[in-house]
């Protein structure tokens, strides 16, 4: 069903916090409460320009979700909403928690047969640098805006997997300026860790701290190179790739990645 976009007011965000607290305490969800909250005009404001979303849409992945939200909002407006200070200090624009509540069934995961509601920062966008990379709706949109120029492999690597899960790869990368600010580093990370045929579109054990060549190792290597070398353009990824230490060999495929990506 099509619905006009709305945004939570300060009172709406308070109600959502209370609802999440009850869900966690009772260890179950209250479907009618989520549905009521997203439609309650006492706690939400219309967004003004009449844009609509399909609230019954099922998303196959976070990539599907981000692509859909960007098609509704448009990149410029989405960027402005991501930067907005919001109705409550530190919580961002009220549209992001409202969208999480509209699609709440897809946000909630299952652990040991029970619904897992997730932390508050997954529902209410925190503007704090460390916490903002958890939100169910805003984080995929923000990632899509950042990595879309790097092609479909990058989008898959960063946004593969279901809406309810935040991948270690996207979280680690997005919290590291060494990667996100540097196209050469970002391109190399995609070449190393993307796996087209895998279910979550990522190589296995990339976040494991025990295994060599994991994503944290990659950041440390970048920091070391950053003191002596200057890599920035996507073209520089070829040099960076060849300079990576042996620890990364298990992620280097036999093919040369730039034959496909940088043509």
């Amino acid at each position, binding site marked *: 069903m099509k619905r006009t976009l709305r945004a939570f007011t300060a009172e709406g965000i308070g109600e959502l916090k209370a609802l999440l607290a009850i869900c966690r305490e009772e260890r179950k969800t209250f479907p009618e409460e989520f549905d009521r909250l997203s439609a309650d005009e006492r706690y939400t404001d219309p967004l*003004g*320009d009449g844009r609509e979303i399909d609230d019954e849409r099922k998303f196959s992945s976070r990539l599907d979700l981000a692509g859909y939200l960007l098609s509704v*909002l*448009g990149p*410029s*407006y989405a960027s*402005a909403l991501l930067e907005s200070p919001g109705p409550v200090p530190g919580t961002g624009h009220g549209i992001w928690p409202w969208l999480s509540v509209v699609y709440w069934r897809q946000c909630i995961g299952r652990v040991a047969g029970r619904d897992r509601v997730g932390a508050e920062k997954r529902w209410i966008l925190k503007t704090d*640098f460390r916490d903002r990379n958890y939100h169910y709706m805003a984080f995929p949109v923000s990632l899509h805006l*950042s990595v879309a120029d790097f092609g479909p492999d990058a989008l898959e690597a960063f946004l593969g997997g279901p809406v309810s899960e935040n991948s270690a790869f996207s979280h680690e990368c*997005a919290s590291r*300026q060494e990667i*996100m*600010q*540097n196209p050469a580093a970002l391109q190399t990370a995609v070449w190393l860790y993307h796996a087209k045929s895998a279910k979550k579109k990522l190589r296995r054990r990339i976040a494991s701290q025990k295994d060599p060549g994991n994503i944290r190792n990659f950041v440390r290597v970048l920091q070391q190179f950053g*003191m*002596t*070398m*200057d*890599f*920035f353009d996507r073209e*520089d990824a070829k*040099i960076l790739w060849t300079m990576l230490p042996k620890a990364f060999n298990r992620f280097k495929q036999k093919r040369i990645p730039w034959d496909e990506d940088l043509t």
Partner: protein
Amino acid sequence: MPYRFNFTGRRTLRQSDFRLEVSELLTPLNTTLSLTGDVLDGFAGVPGARLVVEAYRHNEAQRRDLGPVARFKNGSPVVFDRFSDGAHVLFRIKVVDPATRRLLALAPRIRPFGAKDRGGRREKMLPVQFAGENDRMGGQIWSIRFELEHPTLLLDRSRAGFDYVNDPKFRLLALPRILRDILLYAFVLQAGRRPKWASSWQRFVEDRLGVDGCPDDENLSGSVLEDYMDDAAKWIEEAVAVFSEQNKLGAIAR
């Protein structure tokens, strides 16, 4: 005492080696860079050494290659069109050898000149926001709200998807008008009781645009007031003309 290895002979550029200034108007992020003679001379003899400036904020960065150090001209404008304003933006200056990718010199985490003067916080001269329910826009796509602390540029929320900052028509038609309206308000309408933010706009016109001649607004009455109004109007018109030239608005019109 901590020790650091520096096997490649990388030089650290200090705050006294350069001066990076940011224009605070509503254009893409505009900076000007000057380097001291020591830096210019120090790398002039290194064949191929290039000067690079990177602006960054959160997870976003943009780089500008300013060419060989030997040919760099002090006061050169550097525009970062990925950033609409300079809030929270930091910079890196690098001297690099493009053949080997070696970093010859680095100045990391630069806060632009003037930022520390206000306790480390950069204050915007013209904050931009979408109009709220209480702002009467009457169909205009932009308007200015004059407040005690600063003027605020209001944009029509119903056109929120419109890329105001990068749209050439908006820049061509709106920017000179915004500057004129703000200067007219501060220096003509409020003559004799200028808002406290007027001084930063006066500095902007005098220092950045190079337009002197802002009249003094003390003891305004009779013919003194008439002269003041004439002088202020001329000063404002000259400021708007120079601003339009500097931002190459004429080229957009053609």
